[in-house]
């Protein structure tokens, strides 16, 4: 019985293929968007979390500027004095402090000039930081012999892809104006900010930039078992004594996670609103189509009533029809959404961001929920037109031409 009703409704949808498809498209767009985001959101979260984990759970980062905008520090002119940061090493619970300085400069190799990010840090803590907490190791070569030696290490991509030719160990590169020997390169980390970088001692970088002993930020490694929050408060206290950088942030892993979560939540909220709006637009489309359908099929409604259809039968037929439009839109949207997420995942992987898309991120429950929602959106949009159809007086409907 229900099957036969479905069949009747389906034929109603199929009767006007072009219009039905256009209406379905309205839903498809919204759902595709929603499913893409749904599928990628856990991937994005995971990617961000794993990046954070690379910084290490026992690492506190100190940088100028407000905590809400860690990237502003890269643009800020304010820099800490080296000695103001090095006092942090005296805090109980701090294992070591790795200062860092960054600058974008031209790098020349075999006559080819490219722009690259130069990362300067005291080499000993840098080596510990990179190798112990961030998963770096030298794929080939060795660390520079000292902070005052003109030697550099390249990130994996900087060595392999920055220039047309792969940079060979022992070759000379020119950074800004000085010659350096490339003595080694790292494994691939999967982060552009780390793989595309030229690493050198902070002294060498300061020589290039002509800066006094300053640092833009510091990675403070916390001793195992120490209370990170407590240490962070002490760091804060120590920094409050210096006067060079008035506004600075002390970022603990928990704070970072929270910060990222907040940003992701806002992004997700905005996206949910967009999805919601696009579903409403789709629903209005369905309603419009159903009204047109009812008008166009007035005579057939009269015929159906003449052969015994009740108001409820007609109502059900049109509701099923609009529900079906919603459901088909939902199904196609789900398929396209997963497909887009998959493609974005591939694209991201090529850009160096792994694990954005995962089949495991697709929850059957979510998919079923999306399909139910689209079916219900279809149903709800069909209610008014279907009621209008159901209430028609058969004789009046039959007269309609």
């Amino acid at each position, binding site marked *: 019985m229900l099957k036969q*009703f479905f069949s*009747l409704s389906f034929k109603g949808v*199929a009767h006007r293929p072009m219009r039905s498809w256009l209406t379905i498209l309205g839903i498809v767009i919204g759902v595709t968007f929603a499913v893409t985001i749904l599928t990628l959101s856990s991937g994005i979260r995971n990617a961000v979390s794993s990046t954070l984990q690379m910084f290490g759970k026992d690492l506190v980062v100190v940088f100028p500027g407000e905590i809400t905008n860690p990237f502003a520090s890269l643009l800020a002119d304010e820099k800490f004095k080296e000695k103001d940061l090095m006092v942090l090493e005296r805090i109980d619970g701090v294992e070591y402090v790795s200062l860092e300085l960054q600058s974008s400069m031209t790098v020349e190799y075999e006559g080819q000039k490219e722009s690259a990010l130069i990362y300067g840090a005291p080499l000993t803590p840098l080596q510990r930081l990179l190798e112990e907490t961030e998963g770096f190791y030298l794929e080939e070569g060795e660390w520079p012999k000292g902070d005052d030696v003109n030697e550099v290490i390249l990130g994996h991509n900087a060595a392999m892809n920055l220039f047309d030719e792969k940079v060979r160990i022992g070759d000379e590169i020119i950074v800004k104006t000085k010659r350096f020997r490339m003595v080694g390169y790292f494994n691939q980390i999967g982060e552009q900010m780390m793989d595309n970088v030229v690493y050198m001692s902070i002294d060498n970088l300061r020589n290039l930039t002509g800066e006094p002993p300053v640092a833009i930020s510091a990675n403070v490694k916390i001793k195992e078992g120490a209370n990170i929050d407590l240490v962070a408060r002490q760091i804060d206290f120590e920094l409050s004594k210096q006067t060079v950088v008035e506004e600075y942030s002390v970022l603990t892993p928990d704070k970072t996670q929270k910060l990222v979560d907040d940003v992701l939540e806002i992004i997700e909220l905005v996206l949910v609103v967009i999805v919601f709006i696009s579903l409403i637009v789709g629903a209005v489309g369905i309603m419009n189509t159903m009204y047109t359908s009812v008008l166009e099929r007035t005579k057939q409604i009269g015929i159906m009533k003449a*052969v*015994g259809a009740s108001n409820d039968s007609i109502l059900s037929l049109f509701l099923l029809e609009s529900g079906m439009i919603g459901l088909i839109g939902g199904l196609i949207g789900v398929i396209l959404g997963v497909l887009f997420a998959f493609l974005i995942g591939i694209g991201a992987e090529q850009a160096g961001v792994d694990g954005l898309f995962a089949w495991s991120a697709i929850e059957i429950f979510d998919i079923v929920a999306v399909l139910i929602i689209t079916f219900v959106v279809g149903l709800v949009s069909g209610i008014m037109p279907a009621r209008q159809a159901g209430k028609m007086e058969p004789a009046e409907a*039959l007269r309609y031409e």
Partner: protein
Amino acid sequence: MVTKKKKYDAVCGLEITGCTGLKSVNYKGKKYDFCDPDCYQRFKKNPKRYVEGKPLIKLKNVKKSFMLGKVKTEVLRGIDFNIWEGDFVVLIGPSGSGKSTTLNMLGLLDRPTSGEIYFGSKNVAHLKDIERAQLRSKTFGFVFQQYNLIPWLSALENVTMPLIFAGKEAKNHSIQKRFKEIGLEHRMNHKPATLSGGEQQRVAMLRALSNRPKILLADEPTGNLDSKTGKKILDMLYRLNKKEGKTLIIVTHDATIAKEADQILSIQDGVIIRDHHHLRKKYTDKMINHA
């Protein structure tokens, strides 16, 4: 002011109050009055049917008006008649006389503005929509001039549709057999647009019979067909009336149809101007000329 209770005759349901040429028949010790000679004749021939039976359908002072823009148009201005089970009834009259509206009233496709429509002993004029739909589904089969098949369904699906609405299981086997009987077995899965007018009307007939209705209502069933095809359709209808005892009510202009009828209701300007029974040829001719 004292109003006398109106009286109606026992066959046609016509008002006899104040009739001048009243004719009476005594049957089993009771007196039956008639004003209309045809109704009188009909009673005389078979009084038992009319005394012991009840009319299948009875219309009493049925009025219907429409609003055309702001103008109120009265289409039916007080219609009375009886239809007896198994009869072949023809509604005849000029265009716009109200005969199709009357048929719609009979088939519960429309509601009267006032008046009563009895189906058996039940007044169905103001039933709820759902009860009307159930009654239509169980009792009436409709055949239209324009065939009115659903264009996006196949012939077979058109025929099974009433069963779906009646909540019955469609048995393809028996439906197939019926298609075979009307010689359209090979066209069963075709869409109406690919069928000829005659074929469409035969499919429409099958559809009308899907739920085995007691009453067949046909609005100009041959109006769009050539005479040969029209005759085939009529033969089918007659057979259903004579052999299967289905009450057949046809709205038509066609003289040949009227000649076969048990009862002719002649409508003009929204009133029944004559209610003829036991028709003979001369009556029919007169009637048709009149119409």
